[in-house]
């Protein structure tokens, strides 16, 4: 028993030390170690995914690498999912999260966000020729992905259009939404339009985007709370990338007119004088 108590005390002490080692500004740590740990998704085409050669590529991957390059540090890419990206940020497993996150005030309570680095909006993907306007989706079944903002957006839209009880089904993964659409379980799939483009490009000519954007999805880079040095650095880096055209280069590589996922660049990154 004595031994047990000593063990318990020792464990408590170790924990206490571990807790103190925990604190410290993220920016200083990055600059000291010369490594930035970035959370990136693994299954979002063309944001970040494993290609046929099992390499990790995508728009987010390139943006993250560019930021690291400009900060003069090495990058450590950490795979995250829509379940883990926030936990990782809060616990310090990653320093920044470049993983298509819509900036919401409610989410800003938990973490910080950079300026918008990608502008997207929500649309509906449906079999070609079946629907022409958003109003046609009243009373139809729509697939969405869980843990994203798209579910409420769709529900609100359908309610506004006069659907008393919207039939919205949420799945865990993008691939599952698309499969549900393919097998006819749902009449449409709604999420950010670039993701929809990515999927419909796999079976050309079968699916189309219907109607206008019905929500704005400004993507921000997730940052640890209360580290203004890091936030400024990331924000300025994004603005610099926009100014010298390297942002556009990366953008065109993934979303340009020559790609499968053509998505015109309409908005501008906000520049501070």
């Amino acid at each position, binding site marked *: *028993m*004595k031994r047990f108590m000593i063990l*318990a005390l020792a464990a*408590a002490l170790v*924990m*206490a030390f*571990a*807790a*103190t*080692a*925990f604190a410290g500004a993220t920016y200083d740590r990055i600059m000291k170690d010369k490594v930035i740990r970035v959370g990136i998704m*693994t*299954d979002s*085409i063309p944001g970040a*995914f*494993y*290609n*046929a050669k*099992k390499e990790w590529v995508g728009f987010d991957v390139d943006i993250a690498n560019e930021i690291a390059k400009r900060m003069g540090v090495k990058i*450590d*890419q950490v*795979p*995250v*999912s*829509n*379940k*883990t990206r*926030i*936990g990782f940020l*809060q*616990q*310090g*497993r990653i320093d920044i999260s470049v993983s298509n996150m819509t900036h*919401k*005030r*409610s*989410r800003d*309570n*938990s973490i910080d966000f950079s300026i918008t680095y990608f502008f997207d909006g929500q649309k509906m993907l449906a079999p070609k020729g079946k629907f022409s306007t958003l109003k046609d989706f009243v009373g139809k079944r729509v697939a969405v992905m*869980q*843990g*994203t*903002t798209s*579910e*409420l957006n769709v529900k609100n839209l359908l309610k506004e259009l006069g659907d008393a009880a919207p039939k919205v*089904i*949420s*799945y865990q*993964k*993008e*691939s*599952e939404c698309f*499969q*549900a659409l393919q*097998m*006819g*379980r749902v009449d449409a799939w709604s999420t950010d339009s670039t993701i929809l483009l990515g*999927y419909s490009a*796999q*079976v050309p000519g079968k699916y189309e985007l219907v109607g206008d954007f019905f929500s704005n999805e400004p993507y921000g880079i997730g940052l640890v709370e209360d580290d203004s040095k890091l936030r400024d650095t990331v924000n300025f880096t994004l603005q610099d990338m926009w100014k010298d055209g390297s942002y556009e280069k990366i953008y065109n590589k993934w979303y340009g007119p020559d790609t499968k996922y053509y998505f015109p660049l309409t908005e501008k990154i906000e520049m501070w004088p």
Partner: protein
Amino acid sequence: MINRYLEKTWVQYLCLATVTAILVYYFGWVFDFGYKFDWSVLYKEDPSYGEVLGGMLVTGLNLTVSISLMSSAIALGLGILFGLGRLSQFKPVYYFSTCYVEFFRNTPLLVQLFFWYFALPMGLPEGIRNFLFDQNFEMLAATVGLGIYTSSFMAEVIRAGIQSIPKGLLEASYSSGLTPFQTLTKIVLPLAFRAIIPPLGSEFLNNMKNSSLAMVVGVPELCWASQQIEGMTFKGFEATTAATVVYLSLSLTIAGLLTLVNWKLQIVPVKDRTMGHKFAHLLFWPFEAPFAFVAKMHRRMKRKRQDDFNLSRAQAARKAFLAKLSKVFGFIWKATFLICLAFLLFSAVYGISKFNFQVIADNIGTLLWWRFPQGDPNEILWGLGGLSFSIIMSVIAISVSFFIGLIVGVGRTSKNKLFLIPSTLYIELIRGNPLIMVIFWIYFFIPILTGHFLNVFWSATIALTVFTGAYLAEIVRSGIQNLPPGQFEAAVSTGLTYWQAMRKIILPQALKQMLPAIVGQFIAIFKDTSLAFVIGVLELTFVAQGLNNRLMVYPFEIYTTVAFLYFICCYLMSLVARRLERKLSTETFRLQM
């Protein structure tokens, strides 16, 4: 000196209270979690979404309960059917039941749910598919899938229960003139059910916990709701805690009900009944009374129409005709069964022959070892993933959890409160929650507590180990308690200490009894590695989903291959288990109906 004090109960309680107080003080006031708790997300209206998010948990609970109830009913029905089918003398029924049980027991529920929901409708004619889709297909697929999965376990429990009935009892019942059907309903099933209530009960519990997987096919149940709240507010800690508390109270309720059933079924003389027994009898009286009444009436009416040994001519002819008729019906039934079986086999073979085998051939390497030697330098195990990853995870979890189970299981049988209470807490806390919740907890908590970040691989493996440890502990406990108490008394009276007696006398015997159960648990843990996909471990299911994501049009091929891979591994293990069971069983007689 200190030992003598420690044998006193109040000292034990005092020690426990002190440790608890220190822990509460430390984590309540000293420890810095590095996280801002905000419990108001659960009960206040969220300004961004204009909704009280805690309400989702209530709707989720509602769904969890109804899925659990419905799938339990399905599982019990099918379980009895296939459990009896495995004892049938008609070989096709036996083989079919065996295939059914083996197949559904040895593939992960996750993969099965994907199959029922995504693949099956594609194989159905358009009309039926549309009809199904007009119903609540998510619920339907989840409930039926869950029911079928659980039924395969129940079938095994029921088969084992029936086979444990001594041969002499059967001979006696036949020789007293009962028909096979009467023997079954009046002798075998009542006795068997009494013996299998505890394992059957834990299957009900598992079924409830497994309902958390219904979220993968879009059913907004409890686990889904907590995930949803987390996704909307990024307050994962609060949402997960709320869900855990609800799951735990559900489990405890079910466990409590099962204890009552157990008390009700125990054969205890009226004067020896404890308060618990009385309460159980009182509680179940309203359910029991109508049946008892009907049975009494039935008996009374039946008694008058007894068969005479001296039949008249007409009676004899009628009897012969009826016997012939039943023979013909039996024949028709068998033929129909065979035709259905042939059709099933044919459509399975036909479906598989339509596969694009090139896709499987191209990607089998990915499924087996992901990008093994060419991984990034910061990837664990040189970029290993897929099936080999699942195997490594389960091997680690199995070997470590075995020792946890042994220690905690022995602690659970100890009389000393210092060991008993922490062991019980650990077991009940872990077993009362779905594995998916345990995975989330370990995943979020270890970094907060230690300040070190684990690879997802390690946190999933730790979660699996902790989870299996609790189950193994229960197996060890029942193994020890199954031994006659005289063994321990004899050992101690020869001068061995408690630990010596445990190590040299009790555990070797108990472990031998427990082996089949332990192997069964190992199979379960191998299948459960598929759940690690929720935190993004590159195991088989995750890799398959990634592949499916990229290839998009070959879900059948990929998921069939995955199910096949899981099946092979689990089936091999269950063969070992069966061989052990046969080797260790004292009675080799196989009961047949």
